[in-house]
């Protein structure tokens, strides 16, 4: 049988063991042989996540909602998958910036703003109040359960309602001893971490012990529990999702808020980030911690089902099943162990939470206010800090007690805790957007946090007050002033969600919406931009020595700076810090020398580790003479520099474009010059060609005119020459006319079906005389059948004649050979005119078809022909959808060929 004094003795005995563990760890740390420098202690310390909620509340929740207790642990498991990316970055940022708390982190990101830090602190304290109340409720209820089990026998009266108050006070003393023992207030508490890790092991063992007891002693293993439970309707309904109020939407919402809570609850941030020794530990914790969660949850459902089946009537509070089940079976040692486990879970949470919150209260709320009011100028500020922190711990616990007294009786454990989770979720947007999006601004964060907090308080906190009778219940139902649309459980008429889901939806909408919206439509100040860039790009390599150096642009004496640090950190630590700085930078620090920018930045970082970034900034600026903050100036310089770079980029681009344009112009100019030259030559050629026949016509005509006695035969001969020359003249003029006509598109094509064999025949006949004159042999290679194409017959004949007369012209007389070949494929016919003439240089082959282009051949003197023949050919062929080109051949002459599409019926 348990006597009261036994219970109390064991409780205090256990707390003493914790204290011993912490003391030992601190001693080891002081001597440089830390015991918490490994991933396993780190993982167990993270398990401070499992509080009285997990230990007692999960079973209670499982007893009413089945698997409804699980999202609280699946969420962190999912969140842990991102730890390698997100958490590691947060840790890295916190280490480089000497971050002391989540408020400090957010304030630091948004321009070291003390307003943000203060707001986060207020949200944390108010938001966590229900959570502390939950722990007090868990401990005091478990106490009372234990006491009552003995009181029934002894007829004594338990501590009654005020158990919670005594517990709160004991915990306050205990937390003060743990967290604020030292005068030198640092952000890290090795002893506390070790004690928390120890507690995590104890609570896991205790819970597993009762789990094994229920499943294996009361029942025949887990299968037996489930078999019996499946048979009874009141337990079998817990095996599906139907028993979860709010259904899948609620499941999703709970998963979401616990994903955020695992990192952004102030105590989780403290353990995960601030107390982290080595970033590498995240690698192990990211899977080992979820494994811990899995282990501690395995027995929840069996215990809940066993409890329901054992206490048939439901007269026993399901939250206390773990305790009552072992008590009912007279297992007092087990019950005591379970009680210690629950005490572990709850005290662990309270210790870390109050330490984290009191640090925030001190650094991010009180210090900035005191500094503004210029109340902190005396020596020994460290003592003031300690006093504030200790007061903070007491205040937080009393607030928790107050909340417990107000609403404690009307809610189950988990329901109270979820209110706090929803509050912690408000930090997620500001942090996550803050470390990945530079655009997130101070005003945005302020608006988002405030908006989300107000919605949270309105939809979750106020209704819980209403239940306690502080506010009239009509505030909740139907709504304030009787307006249904304003009701905190169905805001703006959004119904169908249970209160947590409903609140998470609206608060997140307001939070993210305001954060993003205000950021997008506002401007950031210089310091904000600087901090934003630093947080988002923390892994980008910076130039060495450029870290924070240029931020300070005033002067102060080394002794003043040292004095400031001494006041906060104590003389010993300050001296050590300055000595190590001097050694690192290989300089000597004289007290009456003026401190350079690097030293000032160093001092600010050291201070930030104790009082937070925002306060450190205010403090340092208070002793800097002259212009304290030159950030605006710096940013201006940066802006100017980047503008100059931008301009020079643009200039370079412009000059590249100009160069390209110039090259293009040069090419075009060459072409134009060439064309101009061609035109000149053409005009002179044409004039020359025109003049030659004209001269001879005129000469012969004059002879005929002057010599009237010329004999008729000679006269006849002269007349024939005149006629011939006239014909040549006509031909030339016709050609010029033809070409301009075709070129300008004015020519009327007369298209018809024609046989290429016949066309070739015609051309050969037409050029027969010319070939005979130069004694050139013309051969032909045609197909048996006709080859039909559709086109202007006269023009095609003209093309072939043109090509043939060219060939004949460029062949040497007597030995010249011209071969004509017709072939075709399925789609097109090909005509080749092959000669053994002088050939055409490859580079000329392209341009030979251009108008006015004439082959220049020094051996042949002046160009022959008008330079229009081939240009006309090309125009005609292309007009018939064919193509024309020239190649070399095995006779060393040239082969002109063109193709025409075959006519299909």
């Amino acid at each position, binding site marked *: 049988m348990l006597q009261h004094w036994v219970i109390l003795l064991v409780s205090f005995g256990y707390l003493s063991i914790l204290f011993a563990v912490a003391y030992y760890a601190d001693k080891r740390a002081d001597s440089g042989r830390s015991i918490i420098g490994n991933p396993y202690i780190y993982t167990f310390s993270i398990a401070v996540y499992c509080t009285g909620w997990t230990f007692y509340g999960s079973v209670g929740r499982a007893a009413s909602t*089945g*698997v409804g207790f*699980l999202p609280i642990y*699946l969420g962190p*498991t*999912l969140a*842990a*998958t*991102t730890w*390698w*990316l*997100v958490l*590691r*970055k947060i840790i*890295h940022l916190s*280490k*480089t910036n000497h971050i002391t708390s989540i408020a400090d982190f957010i304030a630091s990101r948004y321009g070291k703003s003390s307003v943000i830090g203060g707001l986060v602190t207020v949200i944390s304290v108010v938001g966590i109040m229900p959570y502390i109340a939950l722990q007090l409720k868990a401990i005091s209820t478990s106490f009372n359960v234990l006491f009552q089990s003995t009181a029934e026998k002894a007829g004594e009266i338990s501590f009654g309602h005020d158990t919670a108050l005594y517990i709160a006070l004991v915990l306050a003393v205990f937390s003060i001893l743990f967290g604020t023992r030292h005068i030198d207030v640092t952000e890290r508490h090795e002893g506390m971490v070790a004690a928390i890790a120890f507690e995590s092991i104890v609570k896991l063992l205790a819970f597993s012990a009762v789990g094994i007891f229920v499943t294996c002693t009361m029942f025949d*293993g*887990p*299968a*037996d529990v*489930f*078999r019996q439970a*499946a048979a009874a309707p009141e337990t*079998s*309904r817990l*095996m*599906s*999702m*139907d028993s979860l109020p709010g259904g*899948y939407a609620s*499941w*999703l919402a709970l*998963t979401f808020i616990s994903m955020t809570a695992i990192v952004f609850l102030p105590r989780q941030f403290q353990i995960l980030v601030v107390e982290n020794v080595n*970033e*590498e530990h995240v*690698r*192990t914790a*990211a*899977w*080992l911690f*979820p*494994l811990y969660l*899995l282990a501690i949850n*395995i027995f929840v*459902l069996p215990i809940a089902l066993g409890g329901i089946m054992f206490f048939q009537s439901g007269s026993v509070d399901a939250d206390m099943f773990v305790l009552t089940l072992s008590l009912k079976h007279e297992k007092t040692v087990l019950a005591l162990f379970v009680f210690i486990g629950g005490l572990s879970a709850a005290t662990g949470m309270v210790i870390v939470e109050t330490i984290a919150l009191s640090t925030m209260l001190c650094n991010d709320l009180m210090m900035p206010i005191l500094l503004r009011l210029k109340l902190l100028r005396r020596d020994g500020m460290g003592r003031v800090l300690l006093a504030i922190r200790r007061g903070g711990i007491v205040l937080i616990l009393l607030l928790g007690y107050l909340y417990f007294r107000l609403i404690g009786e009307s809610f189950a454990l988990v329901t109270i805790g979820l209110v706090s989770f929803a509050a912690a979720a408000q930090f997620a947007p500001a942090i996550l957007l803050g470390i*990945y999006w530079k655009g997130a601004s101070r005003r945005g964060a302020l608006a988002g946090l405030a908006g989300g907090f107000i919605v949270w308080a309105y939809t979750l906190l106020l209704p819980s007050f209403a239940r306690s009778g502080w506010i009239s219940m009509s505030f909740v139902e139907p709504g304030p002033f009787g307006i249904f649309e304003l009701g905190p459980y169905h805001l703006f008429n959004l119904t169908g969600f249970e209160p947590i889901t409903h609140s998470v939806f609206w608060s997140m909408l307001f939070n993210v919406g305001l954060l993003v919206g205000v950021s997008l439509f506002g401007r950031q100040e210089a310091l904000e931009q600087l901090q934003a860039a630093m947080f988002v790009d923390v*892994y*980008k*390599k*910076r130039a*060495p*020595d450029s*870290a924070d150096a240029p931020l300070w642009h005033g002067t102060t004496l080394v002794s003043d700076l040292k004095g400031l640090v001494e006041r906060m950190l104590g003389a010993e630590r300050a001296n050590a810090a300055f000595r190590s700085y001097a050694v690192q930078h290989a300089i000597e620090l004289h007290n009456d020398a003026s401190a350079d920018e690097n030293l000032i930045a160093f001092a600010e970082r050291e201070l930030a580790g104790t009082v937070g970034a925002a306060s450190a900034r205010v403090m340092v600026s208070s002793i800097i003479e002259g212009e304290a903050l030159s950030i605006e100036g710096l940013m201006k310089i940066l802006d100017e520099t980047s503008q100059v770079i931008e301009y020079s980029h643009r200039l370079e681009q412009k000059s590249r474009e100009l160069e390209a344009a110039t090259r293009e112009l040069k090419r075009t100019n060459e072409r134009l010059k060439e064309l101009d030259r061609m035109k000149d030559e053409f005009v002179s050629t044409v004039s020359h060609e025109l003049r030659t026949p004209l001269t001879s016509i005129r000469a012969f005509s004059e002879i005929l005119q002057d010599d009237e006695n010329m004999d008729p035969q000679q006269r006849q001969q002269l007349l024939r020459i005149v006629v011939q020359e006239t014909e040549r003249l006509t031909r030339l003029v016709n050609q010029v006319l033809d070409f301009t006509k075709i070129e300008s598109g004015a020519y009327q094509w007369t298209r018809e079906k024609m046989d290429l064999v016949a066309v070739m025949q015609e051309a050969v006949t037409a050029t027969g005389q010319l070939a005979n004159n130069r004694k050139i042999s013309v051969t032909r290679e045609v197909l048996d059948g006709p080859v039909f194409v559709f086109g202007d017959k006269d023009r095609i004949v003209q093309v072939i004649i043109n090509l043939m007369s060219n060939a004949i012209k460029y062949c040497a007389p007597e030995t010249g050979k011209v071969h004509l070949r017709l072939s075709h494929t399925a789609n097109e016919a090909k005509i080749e005119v092959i000669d053994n003439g002088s050939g055409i240089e490859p580079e000329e082959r392209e341009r030979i078809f251009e108008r006015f282009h004439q082959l220049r051949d020094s051996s042949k003197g002046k160009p022959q022909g008008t330079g229009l023949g081939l240009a006309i050919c090309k125009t005609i062929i292309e007009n018939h959808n064919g193509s024309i080109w020239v190649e070399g051949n095995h006779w060393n002459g040239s082969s002109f060929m063109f193709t025409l599409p075959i006519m299909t019926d």
Partner: protein
Amino acid sequence: MIEPGFEGAKPYSGDRHIPKPQRRVERVISLLIAGIAFLNFPILSVFSKIELVFGIPVLYFYLFLVWGLIIGAMALILHDRPQKSSASPAEKEPEER
């Protein structure tokens, strides 16, 4: 979400040379998405019935199975490093000066 692993990673130079840290980032994110998908509606509704497998309620069994798989996958992903830590400079972030 292109942080730590991506920094200092070399650009793609063919499939076989995807840098290790970047691969890890991709795997971790995929695992998160898969986890969210498998632990929510509608897949959960498939198992939401009163039925026992190996003597355990099917929903309970499924949730713990997926949970265990996620933990296992996470351990594999994060501890999969054939080279010693010094050989992956991209993961070693610059210390504070």
